[in-house]
């Protein structure tokens, strides 16, 4: 018997509640960032005494930084696109052996963190002490072969480690292409090359363009590589400049804030452009189209391409890990160590150092908390935005995707000011880091869960509705069980992301809240490179274990982790 309607519902409460939380998390720090950027009064005095735009014009005192940022970002984007395109082509369109495995492995550099890559490549490519250069000189070469402390060196590391996003996006585009379009071309007599140039390329270009814009926006906000490789020779990009301005004495907070706000504006614009061109509304990459891409049989050429794939993975994963291991086992890291240069001391110190233990412990604890709370929060948000029909859900999508446009470091800036004045004493504690992580990971988590959610046929939930189940009942009995594989994948992604987090943590750590990745950076700038290498390897081990668990679980349950 149909019964009367009641206006209050659990649905609305959960929906608007979680929307309010997201809005506070995201907008509160942005407000403080802007306030700091517009503060032209005495920097020591809070709240600001005078407002103005002087800080923004002050940015132009540093034209070199802007130029550097552009150079590095463009170079890194181009390199990422090249790597991404080549690898995507090889792995989705040819019959290279083991391509499914390689596709999964392409995510590994991302998990390894660009910091690790930067450390390793610094050890490899420093003009004087870099291993590659030492070998070069031993082989009779002059001076040095490569100098990693230049714009192109930085871009190289950025592309290797942060460029896997380009691969994922381009591969998705290639996979969603209807092979019949190419087959039609070939049936009409066009050769393979001509088909690729006239049919495939034009079809792929919009997707590649979208990837280019997205990757460029990411590169603008990149921090780790420029920090390790650029700072020593005073090569600053905007993010490292902001960090420098904040850390140096006396700090130039207001200009740093203005720089951050400007960077934010540029990235926001780029991401807005990206959405207009490619996604037309949603950030969810459309997966699961029913096309199976045509795989070309390239004969013996596949072994050459296999070599290319292996080479890429070697450069991005194998070589850095080997290098770090090599360095961490020496007293003073050189390419050709004497017999008495080997030692386990670095590992012993790393493992016994109280600071490291507590940093690792904090990171693990924080990882658990972030992943667990995050999954619930972001799950609700994903449902609110993509599945509920509550009014205003479109607006919440914008708010949730906001942090994508703000580099972590800049966001942490706002967070710093926002929560230092908060009456509850969370400043300098792990709770602040937790809030920071939940905020900056919103886009990642919501996107991942939404991707899985949208793959669930709506009719499964509607059917439960037609059987009479209330919203809470069907979420519990139908939606959540179906989401579990995706939720697990999201949990692990959040866990790994929080352990490898650098930009926000480095500004927000307090005495009781040290975490591992910024500690590695501090070690790089404050202790020997060998000890730092040992620390980095320990951190990698933790991430590797988490990653293996991720792959095992999601394979078993049959879902695929969406990046």
């Amino acid at each position, binding site marked *: 018997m149909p019964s009367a309607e009641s206006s209050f519902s659990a649905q609305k409460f959960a929906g608007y509640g979680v929307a309010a939380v997201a809005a506070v998390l995201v907008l509160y720090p942005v407000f403080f960032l802007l306030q700091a950027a517009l503060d032209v009064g005495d920097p020591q005095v*809070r709240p600001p005494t005078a407002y103005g735009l002087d800080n923004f014009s002050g940015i132009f005192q540093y034209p070199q930084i802007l130029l550097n940022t552009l150079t590095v970002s463009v170079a890194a984007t181009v390199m990422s696109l090249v790597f991404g395109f080549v690898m995507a082509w090889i792995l989705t369109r040819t019959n290279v052996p083991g391509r499914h495995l390689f596709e999964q492995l392409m995510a590994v550099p991302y998990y390894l963190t660009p910091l690790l890559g930067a450390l390793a490549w610094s050890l490899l490519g420093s*003009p004087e002490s870099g291993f590659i250069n030492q070998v070069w000189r031993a082989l009779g070469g002059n001076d040095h072969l490569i100098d990693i402390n230049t714009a192109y060196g930085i871009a190289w590391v950025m592309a290797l480690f942060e460029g896997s996003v380009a691969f994922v996006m381009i591969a998705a585009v290639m996979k969603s292409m209807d092979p019949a379009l190419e087959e039609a071309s070939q049936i009409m007599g066009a050769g393979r090359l001509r088909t690729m140039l006239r049919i495939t390329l034009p079809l792929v270009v919009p997707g590649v363009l979208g990837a280019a814009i997205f990757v460029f926006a990411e590169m603008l906000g990149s921090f780790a590589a420029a920090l390790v490789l650029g700072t020593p020779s005073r090569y600053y990009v905007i993010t490292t400049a902001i960090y*420098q301005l904040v850390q140096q004495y006396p700090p*130039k907070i207001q200009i740093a804030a203005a720089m951050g706000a400007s960077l934010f504006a540029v990235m926001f614009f780029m991401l807005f452009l990206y959405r207009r061109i490619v996604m037309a509304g949603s950030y969810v990459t459309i997966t699961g189209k029913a096309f199976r891409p045509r795989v070309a049989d390239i004969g013996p050429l596949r072994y050459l391409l296999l070599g290319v794939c292996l080479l890429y993975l070697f450069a991005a994963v194998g070589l850095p890990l080997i290098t770090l291991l090599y360095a961490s086992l020496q007293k003073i*890291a050189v390419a050709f160590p004497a017999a008495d240069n080997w030692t386990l001391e670095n590992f012993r*110190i790393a493992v016994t150092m*109280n600071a490291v233990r507590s940093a690792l412990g904090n990171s693990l604890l924080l990882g658990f908390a972030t992943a667990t709370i995050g999954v619930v929060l972001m799950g609700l948000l994903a449902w609110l935005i993509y599945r509920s029909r509550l009014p205003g859900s479109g607006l919440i999508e914008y708010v949730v995707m906001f942090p994508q446009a703000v580099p972590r470091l800049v966001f942490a800036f706002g967070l710093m000011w926002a929560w230092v004045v908060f009456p509850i004493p969370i400043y300098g504690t792990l709770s602040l880091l937790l809030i920071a992580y939940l905020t900056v990971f919103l886009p990642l988590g919501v996107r991942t869960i939404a991707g899985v959610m949208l793959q669930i046929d709506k009719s499964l939930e509607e059917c439960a509705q037609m059987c009479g189940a209330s919203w809470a009942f069907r979420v519990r009995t139908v939606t959540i069980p179906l989401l579990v594989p995706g939720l697990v994948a999201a949990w692990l992604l959040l866990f790994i992301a929080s352990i490898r987090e650098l930009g926000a943590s480095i500004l927000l750590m307090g005495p009781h809240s040290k975490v591992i990745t910024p500690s590695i950076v501090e070690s790089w700038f404050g202790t020997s*490179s060998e000890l730092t290498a040992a620390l980095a390897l320990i951190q990698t081990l933790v991430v590797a274990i988490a990653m293996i668990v991720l792959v095992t679980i999601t394979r078993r349950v049959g879902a695929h982790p969406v990046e």
Partner: protein
Amino acid sequence: MADSKKSIVTRRMLLKAGAAVPLLGMAAPAVLAQAPLKSPTKILDFMTNADVAKAEQEGQLVFYCHENEPGTAGIMEGFRKDFPKINTSYVRAQTGALYNKIVSERSAGRFDVDVIQLSDLAPAVDFQKKGGYEQYLSPETGAYKADHLSSPAGSFFWTGVDPAGIAYNSTKVSAADAPKTWQDILNPRWKGSISCKISASGLQFVQWYTLRKLYGADFWKEFAKQNPHAFDSRVQLFDRLAKGDDLITAIGEYPAYILFKDKGAKVEFVAPADGLPATPLIVGAVSKAPHPEAAKLFVDWAMSKRGQAWYQTNPNLYYGSVRTDAPPMPTGVRLGDLKLLYPADWDDYAANRDVFAKEWNGMIGL
């Protein structure tokens, strides 16, 4: 402000004149403001005015320090060894940044720090003026000359001295080519292969000030042409030196030299005849501390023979001690054996902070 300036000058003049002045008397106004002195108790092998039982009940010590990570951890390790019931936690940042941090926090109403160690006298004096230090007279104070204490005493003391000369990579630089005097660091052959410290470093400020006084303002302008690499920590400087990333360092700190030599690095130290710029390392308990008794206990510990021995012998520290009864440094050298260059007029020094920062940042930073 005027008072302390007057009192420094007065005391200095008096000391030069050889007169000894009872500390308590000179410091009268500030000391009267303190709570009545308890009689000091002996703990381990030193005297303390802190309530040790209460300190252990507090169970925590929050330490802000300019030292690098292993150095700071090392200091904490020493204290914890003697007082295992007190958990230590620390924040480290180079002096300028560290000072800035604590000031911002305090202005936002956050008082989370118990003890702070700085490598620059200027911010210490500034902090004292702001009332940032807890007025606490340690019973160990008597073992220190007035020059090595705050004025009036009770705010901070010199827990050590960090002198710096020149250091170079001995495989890449022959003894003949090696720099011998301070002028030698301006030699164009070192361009692009020379390092120094960042502007937040107290020692760098001292070096800038003292050599400027000796050789004129153009000295550092010439140095800027060397395109030096600047870093936060002496370990980093020597790390690069040992690996050959830099050929020489313009600010080779003696403690780091000892550490790396022990590791077997091919580095050599040069003590130019004109002297070694040195900065005091300043420790003081912070006012409105969350764990006041632990803070006081730490100060006493640091001032004591025991604490000073730790500072001197820990490989990550190797500080020179100014305690009047301290033994020589592990290498056998005494601080008194070295010709140390301090700023003659600490107030003029402090006043030049901004000038230094601007010039130095212009050279190596933003």
